[in-house]
């Protein structure tokens, strides 16, 4: 099995595997693979903050320029992996269908996890940084996303390390 077949198995479960070429799908796929990794899916795509959010160039390379070996390999999700998909769906709820909401949640999680290394070590600093990077989102929208993340246990360790 390849990284391509692993990612495609998850995308099939999310109903996104048939449309890899649209602008909206590609934006969603970058964010959803990141979220699946947060929920412990064994997807080996590295993410880094590029200009305005977390992205995986490796995912671009793998999904949108697959090799013949990739195209020949196919697998289904295991029971555990299906549970991961369901947990992620429950967490995201209606945000699963909104590219903008997904972008905000994923970016916020990334800055909560990695921002302290760069000095963004309080909620206020993180929100200010995010507003500077994504002026299209209002303070209220960021606050709603923050509460959603705070309610989950997954990022509790990162949130408790923040000052203030």
């Amino acid at each position, binding site marked *: 099995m390849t990284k391509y077949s692993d990612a495609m198995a998850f995308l099939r479960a999310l109903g996104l595997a048939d449309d890899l*070429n*649209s*602008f*909206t799908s*590609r*934006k969603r*796929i*970058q964010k959803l693979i990141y979220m699946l990794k947060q929920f412990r899916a064994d997807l080996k795509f590295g993410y880094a903050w*590029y*200009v*305005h*959010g977390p*992205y995986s*160039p490796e*995912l*671009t*390379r793998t*999904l*949108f*320029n697959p090799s013949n070996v990739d195209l020949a390999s196919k697998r289904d999700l295991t029971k555990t992996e299906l549970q991961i998909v369901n947990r992620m769906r429950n967490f995201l709820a209606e945000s699963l269908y*909104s*590219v*903008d909401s997904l972008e905000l949640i994923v970016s916020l999680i990334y800055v909560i996890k990695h921002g302290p290394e760069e000095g963004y070590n309080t909620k206020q600093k993180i929100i200010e940084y995010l507003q500077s990077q994504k002026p299209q989102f209002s303070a209220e929208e960021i606050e709603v996303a923050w509460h959603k993340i705070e309610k989950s246990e997954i990022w509790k360790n990162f949130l408790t390390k923040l000052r203030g």
Partner: protein
Amino acid sequence: MSVAEELFDLKTKHLLKELLQQPSVLFNPHRIAIMVELYCASAIDFPQLKYDLGLTDGALATHLKALANEGLIESKREPVESRVRTGYVITKKGISAVEQMFKILCEIRGGFQR
């Protein structure tokens, strides 16, 4: 200089030839920046590119058209949330072109360091 320190380097000539075979449309700082952003993100909308690159609508549209004409990117006009947005996606050819260009440049740089 000892024999071990010298090189009979035919590779650089080959690499320069390869570099000259790359799509010439790529060799412009704004177009490289657009391709790098698209390589990282897979898809970006017009306003975001405009904000990131600090270009006018006209200048950005000219660069995007040049890259699209070469088959390196595709433009998409799609409904997102409640409005229609113009976005761009990188093509297979675009992914290969970015990888090839940086591979050649890195190999040339490796030659400088020897």
